[in-house]
């Protein structure tokens, strides 16, 4: 078959483009360490969260030198902890820390999203969403539900406070 030179070049460039796309995503995974949220968090009984070791007393827990775990229950229409607007504690962690969020729902599907960042997951009743995030700089972030969950969905919000390390008071009992 007689293929024109330009067409050969175009076919070659299209193949290179595909390899280039795959290479950049591979870099994101291997180099930058970006991870997709999967089902590794396991399952829970959404009707008995009070008896669960992790969600019976949700909050921030220090598990290593700069490592924290944050257990969050999303319910219509608040995050516990997180929704300081509804009387709950805000989520407060120190800067330069690695924080793993464990988020589950006690009722319907919610979202757990820190707007302006890539921290975002769906929260499904019976499932635990596990996501690890590195907070480098002190900053106050918002927290939003981004899955329509009922009549007051638009007010389901919270706060994630990343405070300077020397101002961090130790987590629970804030």
């Amino acid at each position, binding site marked *: 078959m007689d293929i024109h030179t330009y067409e050969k070049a175009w076919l070659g460039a299209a193949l290179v483009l595909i390899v280039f796309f795959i290479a950049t995503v591979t870099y994101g995974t291997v180099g930058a360490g970006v991870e997709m949220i999967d089902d590794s968090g396991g399952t829970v009984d959404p009707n008995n969260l009070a008896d669960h070791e992790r969600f019976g007393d949700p909050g921030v827990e220090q598990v290593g030198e700069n490592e924290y775990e944050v257990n969050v229950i999303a319910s219509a229409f608040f995050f516990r902890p997180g929704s300081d607007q509804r009387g709950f504690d805000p989520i407060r962690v120190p800067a330069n820390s690695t924080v793993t969020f464990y988020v589950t729902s006690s009722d319907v599907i919610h979202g757990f999203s820190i707007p302006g960042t890539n921290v975002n997951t769906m929260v499904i009743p019976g499932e635990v969403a596990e*996501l690890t995030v590195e907070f*480098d700089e002190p900053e106050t972030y918002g927290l939003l539900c981004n899955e329509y969950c009922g009549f007051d969905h638009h007010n389901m919000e919270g706060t994630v406070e990343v405070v300077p390390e020397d101002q961090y008071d130790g987590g629970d009992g804030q």
Partner: protein
Amino acid sequence: MSQPTDPPGTPPDSAIERELTHDEFDPIGTAVLITLYFLILVGMWLFTYFVEFLGNGPTVVGVIG
């Protein structure tokens, strides 16, 4: 008028100004335009992935498990 023996769609001989062989056909303008589109596409991907996505930290991180 074309000869009755010409296949349909063939221009009459008198209408052909210049005949090109396969390799002489050289649509350089189209090639330049496509190259330009290609570079825009690559540039937009680089911007979307590295600036808007990876630059939009914090990001969910982990070790490939």
